[in-house]
């Protein structure tokens, strides 16, 4: 087991889902625990419950394409903002529910439910 630290969180994330990623491990820290970048390298990845894009943007440099879905429009707006700021181009974010995904069958190689289920 390893220990993952984050920055001080203050009031973030208690009430606003889009900001709750401040309370979570960093994307690369989580990815390392799951097996490292090889898990997503060259793959099509779906991040369900993506929030503000914490994980999707973190793994985007390794993946072919990353889709992020979240039911909260504010979270998706924050994710798009973060993607623009980071200059990441292989990520798409959309509002949606996990029960009705807008993708054709067999679209993805990896689906992430990070702190979602």
């Amino acid at each position, binding site marked *: *087991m*390893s*220990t*993952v*630290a*984050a*920055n*001080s*969180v*203050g009031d973030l994330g*208690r*009430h606003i889902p889009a900001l709750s990623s401040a*309370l*979570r*491990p960093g994307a690369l820290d*989580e990815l390392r*625990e*799951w*097996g490292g970048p090889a*898990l997503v390298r060259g793959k099509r990845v*779906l991040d*369900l419950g993506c929030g503000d894009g914490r994980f999707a943007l973190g793994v985007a440099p390794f993946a072919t394409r990353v889709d992020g879905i979240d039911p909260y429009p504010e979270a998706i707006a924050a994710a798009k903002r973060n993607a623009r700021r980071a200059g990441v181009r292989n990520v798409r974010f959309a509002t949606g*529910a*996990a*029960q*009705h*995904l807008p*993708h*054709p*069958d*067999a*679209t*993805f*190689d*990896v*689906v*992430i*439910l*990070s*702190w*979602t*289920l």
Partner: protein
Amino acid sequence: MVDALGEVHRVLAPGGILVDARPDSRVPAYAKRRKPRGFQRFGVVKTSRPELANDRASDRAIAHVVREGLFKRRRRGRFWHLVPFSSLAELRNYLSEHLRFVHRADWVVDAATRKRHSNDHFVIRRAVRYELLEALRSARNINKKGNVIQL
């Protein structure tokens, strides 16, 4: 939840990987004071009952889709995550407002010790568990002759 996992199976290519990661409510979290080297345990923080129920429901949903043959368990593990606070008061505020945890820690140090160190840095150390599941070809991907339909 089972509906959502069914959708995940549909959009995953056969052999694709589902990662389920979430705080491990079966393991207590700990409130700890940062020392120059290491930590001092100050208290134990339990998970709230609604969150325990949610986690159990998630476990049942995963077990169901594995039983139904949609997924195969590949690997699981656990790691620790630190949520940092700049004082004991900030940690207490977090506990009082955060839904995952019960609102008060069970302190393992006396009141005088808590007061003496109230302006030190603290963390909540909590367990995060993960599981990797492989999407299997299910009955709906097999035609009447028993051949696997290429997706």
